[in-house]
């Protein structure tokens, strides 16, 4: 046996989807480090958060408020599956702290695992079409701009382009540690759960 392979901590995925075929299919897509923790249809049975790291849920049909209610005051990561890319709920979801989103029609093992990996890494993941829609939204309010420094705004701008910590460090000639610290400060200052939410909020407020 090759013991040199680094052991990743298993990440337990709870899948909520009201269609049994699609739900089973999503479960079948999982591969290590992701494990199926349990499944439910429209939050019945209620997801068991004591053994769940990431909750995958349907955006529509009250999925979003249910998921947000469950995630409140927990470290639960949220990944949503949207039936409709035009759905305003998608923007609402990202602003509320949902880490990843995938369109139902785009679902395949690759996109699903990519979305889960990004969520687990704290990077967030959005379908490109959703990201561009977020970025092209009318900008409202400049008031909060003073809350962030130029340096923080610079990092946020690069984050919104999908750059990784390392790329940002190279672009701005900072160390990766510095970039991580800046991102951390931004998340705290903006009261965001993750990078995707910070980018969404900053975009909406016209900060970047």
């Amino acid at each position: 046996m090759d013991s040199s392979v680094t052991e990743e901590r298993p990440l337990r995925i709870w899948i909520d989807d009201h269609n049994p075929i699609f739900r089973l299919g999503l479960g079948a897509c999982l591969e290590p480090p992701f494990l199926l923790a349990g499944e439910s249809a429209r939050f019945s049975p209620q997801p068991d958060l004591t053994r769940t790291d990431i909750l995958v849920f349907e955006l529509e049909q009250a999925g979003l408020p249910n998921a947000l209610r469950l995630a409140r005051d927990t470290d639960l990561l949220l990944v949503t599956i949207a039936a409709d890319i035009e759905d305003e709920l998608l923007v609402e979801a990202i602003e509320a702290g949902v880490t990843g989103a995938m369109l139902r029609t785009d679902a395949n093992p690759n996109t699903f695992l990519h979305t889960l990996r990004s969520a687990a890494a704290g990077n967030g993941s959005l379908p490109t079409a959703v990201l561009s829609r977020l970025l092209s939204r009318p900008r409202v309010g400049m008031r909060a701009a003073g809350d962030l420094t130029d340096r923080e705004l610079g990092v946020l701008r690069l984050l919104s382009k999908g750059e990784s910590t390392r790329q940002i460090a190279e672009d701005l000639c900072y160390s990766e540690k510095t970039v991580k610290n800046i991102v951390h400060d931004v998340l705290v200052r903006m009261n965001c759960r993750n990078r995707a939410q910070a980018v969404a909020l900053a975009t909406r407020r016209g900060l970047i």
Partner: protein
Amino acid sequence: MHRVLIGQFGTVARMGLRELLDGQGIEVVAEAQSVEGIVSCVSEVRPDVVVLDLDDEDALGTAEEITSEFPAIKVIACSCEEPVMRVFPPFHHGESYASKLSAALLALALSS
């Protein structure tokens, strides 16, 4: 044991169906690669049951075509969006009833 042919489905739905059928010990004898090719695939493979994607707009037409041409074959059209399926019983051409879709109900429809 019934031999099942699966019509064209999205990747995730196909994996879900496979999972469900494997769990019930039901044999999948073929998967149609295209919507157009399904009827010829059915006549070649002669399965006992055909599972179609109800969300495909041609599903009902295809189901009728299959059941009228091969009256002994049962067609079950499952939605991968809403939890609904329609079962086309053999000997009742073009007639179907919608029912709730759950793993247990689908397995029951497949094996009865």
